[in-house]
């Protein structure tokens, strides 16, 4: 009985300590989220510098949110149509991602460096939620960390309606780039 108790205590202590060591959450409100698509007639690209992101390395969970209206286009009319007709940002003001690093063992938190990881989770755009999987890079550098990712989504997966007259102007897939410098969340 005594040994069991000691074991239990040790176990819980180890668990507690290990959690404490790794219970590190990082965040940013200035993640750069941009997208790019190229069709024969029209190149569409926009950038948003105000993505919010929190990553919890204890649970390997991460969350991103970005305001659709904050995407900046070179062409003002394109920006208006993006909000009004395609993304309907008055109805769906945000795009979000909730996911998890599936191979956290590749990251050595104690050493500065770049670590390639795989992230899986739910991407919600235009009110439609889809399971996605994307490659990402986590850069450990001193106090902060940097996250990078590039992946593609299909416009039709998110119920974004493209009228026949402009179908040739709009690409069917869009490449999304994420770049965030995160600092520890206290």
């Amino acid at each position: 009985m005594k040994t069991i108790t000691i074991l239990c205590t040790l176990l819980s202590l180890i668990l507690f300590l290990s959690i404490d060591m790794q219970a590190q959450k990082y965040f940013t409100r200035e993640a750069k989220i941009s997208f790019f698509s190229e069709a024969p007639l029209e190149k569409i690209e926009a950038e948003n510098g105000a993505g919010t992101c929190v990553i919890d390395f204890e649970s390997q969970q991460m969350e991103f949110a970005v305001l659709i209206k904050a995407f900046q286009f070179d062409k003002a009319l394109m920006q208006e149509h993006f909000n009004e007709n395609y993304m309907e940002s008055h109805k769906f003001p945000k795009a979000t991602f909730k996911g998890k690093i599936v191979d956290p063992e590749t990251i050595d938190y104690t050493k500065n460096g770049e670590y390639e990881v795989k992230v899986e989770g739910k991407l919600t755009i235009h009110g439609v939620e889809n399971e996605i999987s994307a490659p990402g890079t986590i850069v450990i550098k001193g106090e902060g960390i940097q996250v990078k990712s590039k992946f593609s989504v299909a416009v039709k997966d998110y119920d974004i309606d493209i009228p026949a007259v402009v179908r040739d102007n709009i690409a069917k897939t869009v490449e999304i780039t994420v770049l965030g410098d995160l600092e520890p969340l206290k």
Partner: protein
Amino acid sequence: MHKILILLSLAFVLISTAQGQDDLLSLLGEEEETTDYAIASFKANRVINLHSLENTSHGVLDIKISHRFGMINSGWYEMFGLDAASIRIGADYGVTENFMVGFGRSSFEKTYDGFLKYRVLRQSSGAKVMPVTLALFSSMAVKGTRWPDPARENYFTSRLYYTHQIIVGRKFSESFSLQLSPTLVHRNLVETEAEAHDVFALATAARLKLTKRIALNTEYIYVAPNQLSEGYKNSLSIGVDIETGGHVFQLHFTNSTSMIEKGFITETTGDWTGGGIHFGFNVSRVFTVHSPGN
């Protein structure tokens, strides 16, 4: 003692698992509220003839071709107006986000016009709340037709017309926008003494969005009585906006022939009840000349 230790260890395990946050973003606390400006209250910077509360965006050149056929009551011989045409070719440019200029030439009375439009207030919600958009508009028109009586002494200033407008409007919902424009038209030369040099009018315009890309527009301009001579009517226009990518097509029926303020406000002769209306269209194509962000 043992029991306490077991309980404690259990508690630790429980606490540690409970730490797995369900909603990480909520850890950042309340988000800072942003200002959300109303966009696309009208599809274009014109409702039909009237200027809408919209501005041409900074760095954007908007080429407009506006066309009115003849009057529908002109009958078969004129193919119900399709044989005749009145046209205005113009260009608008957004100098800044809130200031735009424009220029045009109309075949009707061979008139040149130029205007300035400045948005003073912009409808917004969120961090900064503003219930309406308010813009100031001033235009000048130069009538180019030859003098009816070249023998008498004619002055260039007699060709000039000025219009000043305050445009106040609100996008009430995604589908409905309404605006009011108190207007003053000044005419340097009028035909008879009974006509006013300064004509006061109140213009109203509304938009009802039918689908994502099609909207129904109406505008009506009330001219206060005893300013114009008999035979001039208030301008009433009804039309649809059809938007395709970089173009906006505006198709409409209107009892006004002219497409500039001094004309459609003070010189409308068509009578809706007698079929005195024109079918017409405006086509707008925008070009991004300069990208302010870069």
